[in-house]
């Protein structure tokens, strides 16, 4: 959303139209941009509607439950270095991934001071160690660890997970002094489902019409969904979709190479720009701030809201490398996604010092190679911009695909 020129502007036929469209489209995008510019300081904006904001580390926290308790759930996102490097905290070694280092640095510099509390899910070794350090560094009255099972199948897994969700509910009830009723939870699930369904529509639209919305713009909108009220976000997303749908007939289709992206985080955003600027788009992904988030919706249908929460989280977990995965058919998920999206290659976003995908990568790449699907791993680091090397890698990779 950083003042990217709309490709249609290059074509004089669309000049008049683009002026009209740009205003409308840009007005909506500007609203999202305003939120992202100050995701935590801006919490005050929504204060009247909530008891406060509760932050959570990525990924896999039952936001719906936090919402049902009357709080605004807010994902703790890495600071956008804005093209510069950050040093991280002096007491976190650089063998820790830059997401964790960035967030801890923000803790120390009081950037989350307006949050009522924080929930940390244990999804990797770094989150395990830093959950204890966080407890020491922050002064929140509300701080809790969410202990997700690290496997999705097995005797007692569902029962345990349910118990953990119930423990989280009790924790929230004790904090607020009010009961967290099933009806409230169901209502929150519906609100969240609606938001995710709207985002799915926008994603499909973006993939079909990349000239109208860039990859970075789309993923920024997903990111926004994790820091602002879902009701408002759904409204803005629907508004944007309506504007874009109205215009699609008048904008010529442009050929973009479709790719599948694999990784925990898609940042730094410059990587998405490089892909887009080379006439390629991400048509499917498993990012935590992407499909692994928006694909996790499910109905309540008057049923058990805890079962719905679990199913949603299990769906997210199976798209993430941090849990025990079945030993056979490694790569089946990616291959299926490639087929579904008609992608011509896969890009692995390997966050430096995040071990989870790094262990999976060679076998996933081998599965793709067997089907002659080109794959590329780019090493990403949120604390340093090394887009020069990544740009060269991606351009060469896309040239190979174009030539195939």
């Amino acid at each position, binding site marked *: 959303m950083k003042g990217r020129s709309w490709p249609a502007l290059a074509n004089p036929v669309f000049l008049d139209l683009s002026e009209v469209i740009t205003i409308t489209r840009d007005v909506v995008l500007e609203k999202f941009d305003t939120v992202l510019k100050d995701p935590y300081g801006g919490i005050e904006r929504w204060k009247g509607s909530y008891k406060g904001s509760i932050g959570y580390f990525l990924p896999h926290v039952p936001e719906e439950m936090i919402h049902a308790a009357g709080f605004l759930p807010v994902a703790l996102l890495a600071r956008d270095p804005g093209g510069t490097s950050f040093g991280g905290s002096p007491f976190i*070694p650089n063998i820790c991934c830059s997401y964790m280092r960035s967030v801890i640095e923000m803790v120390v510099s009081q950037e989350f001071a307006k949050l009522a509390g924080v929930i940390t899910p244990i999804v990797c070794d770094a989150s395990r160690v830093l*959950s*204890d350090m966080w407890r020491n560094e922050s002064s929140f009255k509300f701080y809790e660890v969410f202990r997700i099972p690290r496997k999705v199948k097995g*005797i007692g897994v569902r029962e345990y997970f349910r118990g953990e969700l119930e423990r989280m509910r009790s924790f929230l009830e004790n904090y607020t002094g009010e009961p967290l009723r099933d009806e409230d939870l169901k209502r929150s699930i519906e609100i969240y489902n609606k938001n995710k369904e709207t985002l799915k529509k926008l994603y499909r639209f973006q993939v079909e019409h990349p000239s109208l919305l860039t990859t970075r713009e789309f993923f920024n909108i997903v990111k926004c969904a994790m820091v602002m009220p879902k009701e408002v976000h759904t409204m803005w997303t629907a508004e944007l979709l309506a504007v874009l749908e109205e215009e699609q007939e008048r904008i010529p289709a442009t050929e973009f190479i479709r790719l599948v992206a694999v990784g925990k985080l898609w940042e730094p955003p410059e990587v998405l720009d490089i892909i887009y600027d080379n006439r390629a788009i991400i048509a499917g992904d498993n990012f935590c701030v992407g499909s692994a988030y928006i694909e996790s919706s499910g109905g309540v249908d008057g049923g058990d809201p805890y079962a719905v929460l679990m199913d949603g989280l299990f769906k997210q977990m199976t798209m993430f490398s941090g849990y025990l995965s079945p*030993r*056979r058919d490694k790569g089946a998920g990616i291959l299926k996604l490639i087929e579904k999206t008609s992608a011509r290659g896969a890009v692995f976003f390997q966050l430096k010092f995040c*071990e989870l995908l790094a262990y999976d990568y060679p076998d996933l790449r081998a599965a793709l190679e067997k089907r002659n699907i080109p794959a590329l791993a780019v090493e990403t680091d949120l604390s340093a911009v090394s887009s020069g090397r990544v740009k060269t890698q991606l351009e060469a990779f896309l040239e190979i695909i174009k030539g195939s």
Partner: protein
Amino acid sequence: MESKSSKQNIKTLGLLKEIDGNYYKEAVHARRNNRLVGWVNALSPVEILYAMDIIPIYPENHAAIIQARKMCPEIAGVAEAEGYSTDLCSYALCDIGSAISAESPVPGGLPRPDFLMLCNSQCGTLTKWFEVNSRRFDAPLFLIDIPYWGGKKPDKNAKNYVVRQFDELILFLEVLTGKSFDWDKFKEVLDISARTCEIWDYIIGLGRVVPSPLTVFDQFVAMSPIVAQRGTVTALEFYRKLKAELDLRVEEKVAAVPGEKYRLYWDNLPTWCSMRPFSEFLSAKKACLNANTYTWGWTKLAADPQRPFESWAETHLSALSLFYLGGRVKRLLEMIEEYKLNGFIIHLNRSCKVLSLDAIRLRDEVENISGVPGIVIEADHGDQRLFSESQVFGRLEAYFEILESKKQLTE
């Protein structure tokens, strides 16, 4: 009696060559003897496997041998060439590289696993690493998932979850072996395991004696049976002999480091590829590493024979979670008193995030509270490409100057 002035090696440690050799020979011939092989991690409840006559194999121990023989660059390099990142645990890289290349310092290499078993109270890395092995050998992997509670008291739900996984593990192994679980034999194994853990606890505790009859390096060398053969008579007998020799050394005031001047704590895993240089450097400074928490983990793995699964669930959910910042600070402060420490060395181990990400905080907090100086050194538990011995020793030289000036002030 005066403290002996020349270094006397611990003779019992010489038995390990034969003990470890026999263990690997038995493993290599497992199939010939119709025995199954399970690849497990260091904190796995190995007693269950011994009760089922299954041979446990420890990829971590194997990787440590590779690293001690300085074969890491060559073998880890094989894994890296396959696309595994150099940022991964160097144990994992050595193990995966060895599986790909069949290179191993163990004659005949490791036998293929019939299954893998893993307890993730240790770390999460192991799950991903073992998944790689599980796929490579097409062998099932059983994960005992331990929710992390840090310093908090685990709830009933977590405990039930862990206990039910032990029940499931028994079913899994019964199906795999086609045999019913022998509960009587299991109790016998548990009994031996408990006695062995007790002696191991006693041995580690001898570091409190002045002068210390053993160093942490001796403990690292001595730990292979408590890890891999816990619950066997072989391990029990070895530690009995070791205890007897160490008791005699205490009686005769034999110092592990003759002229012991400094008593230091070591945090984290050793640097397997540089054990001797480290040991020689510290000996030259008359510094004895007489305390650590790493080898302590295996003192806690015995289970109550009356309620083994409940007791293991409690251990893995609570006792082993001493490895969190608050617990680590508390324990180190206690050890400074108990072990009469002059200082502490925190190994910021590139390969072990669980024991390293809070290293700087640990040093700062303990120093602030106790006034005892500590140092953080950046290294790796076995990949000599990732750190410079000379740089580490250079930093330690400066640290010893601080220790010396502190010592002079207090004397």
